[in-house]
């Protein structure tokens, strides 16, 4: 069983109305499969995570265990990992 903690940041947290979620799966997971499952659990987050074609937004900020995931890469997620998902923010 793969168990992953997912933490929502910034606009994702505001849209989801919660700080994150937990994913339990019997299959190996990657960043892409995590995003699919997050959208299943929180359909309201879809537009903040992927474009109309279903591709991950280039500006989506993804962290796995204290390291930011490079744009376009899809690393495997080890059981017990924490995945952080957020949108970029600015000043004002």
């Amino acid at each position, binding site marked *: 069983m793969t168990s992953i903690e997912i933490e929502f940041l910034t606009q994702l947290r505001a849209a989801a109305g919660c700080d994150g979620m937990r994913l339990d799966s019997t299959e190996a997971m990657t960043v892409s499969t995590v995003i699919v499952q997050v959208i299943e659990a929180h359909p309201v987050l879809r537009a903040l995570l992927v474009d109309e074609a279903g591709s991950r937004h*280039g500006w989506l900020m993804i962290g796995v265990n204290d390291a930011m995931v490079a744009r376009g890469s899809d690393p495997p997620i080890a059981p017990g990992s924490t995945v952080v998902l957020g949108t*970029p923010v600015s000043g004002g």
Partner: protein
Amino acid sequence: MNPRSMSEEELAIYEWQLDVPGHGVPGQEKLAGATVLVSRVGGLGSPVAYELAAAGVGRLVLAHAGVTKHSDLNRQLLMTHANLGSSRVECASRRLKELNPRLDVVAIDANINERNAAELVAMADVVVDAAPLFQERLAMNDAAFAKGIPIVECAMYDLEATITTQQAGRTSSLRDLVPEPPDPWQRRFPVFGAVSGAVGCLGAMEAIKCITGLGEPLFNRMLFMNLRNMRMRTLSLQAP
């Protein structure tokens, strides 16, 4: 950056920070000879500029268009009620010089854009990005990378904030992280002044570290702060 020697009065003003290990008179002279561009001087940029003025940075270039509005006053600490309807950057300049009359302020009544970014960035030893629009941030970051000038990227939303420091040849750029302005971002967003103040002070400290060589700036790291639950997380960023 040309370090400038200290007067007796300056040595008295900065004596508490002169005692910081690794700083001392050589570090203070670097601050006095440094120029920092801060764009803009709103919720984030106000505390950045104020802390840099207090720390003894010699010259600040402030870029911010427009006049003070009521909705500025919950967080833009260099603005005043009496300044409503008048130039923001002139008010900021006046407030900063009340704190530090030795400070040289270049007040630009314009926001950074693709046309003026290279010229304004070239005036500075360090840039602090506190702007609200990603077009503005990307233009400024591109210009800083073209010149090899370190740039501190401060941002906030609600009770959260992020900060990282970038420099060409050393770190990835803002464009590497945010290739185009994010669709969902809106000019107005929820935030408390205490949040912008917190990350603004950190931004000022990053600029001070870049100028003086003190400590370890957030190169190739991004600090995420959630002041709602007081969780802090530092993510490593891929080096170039």
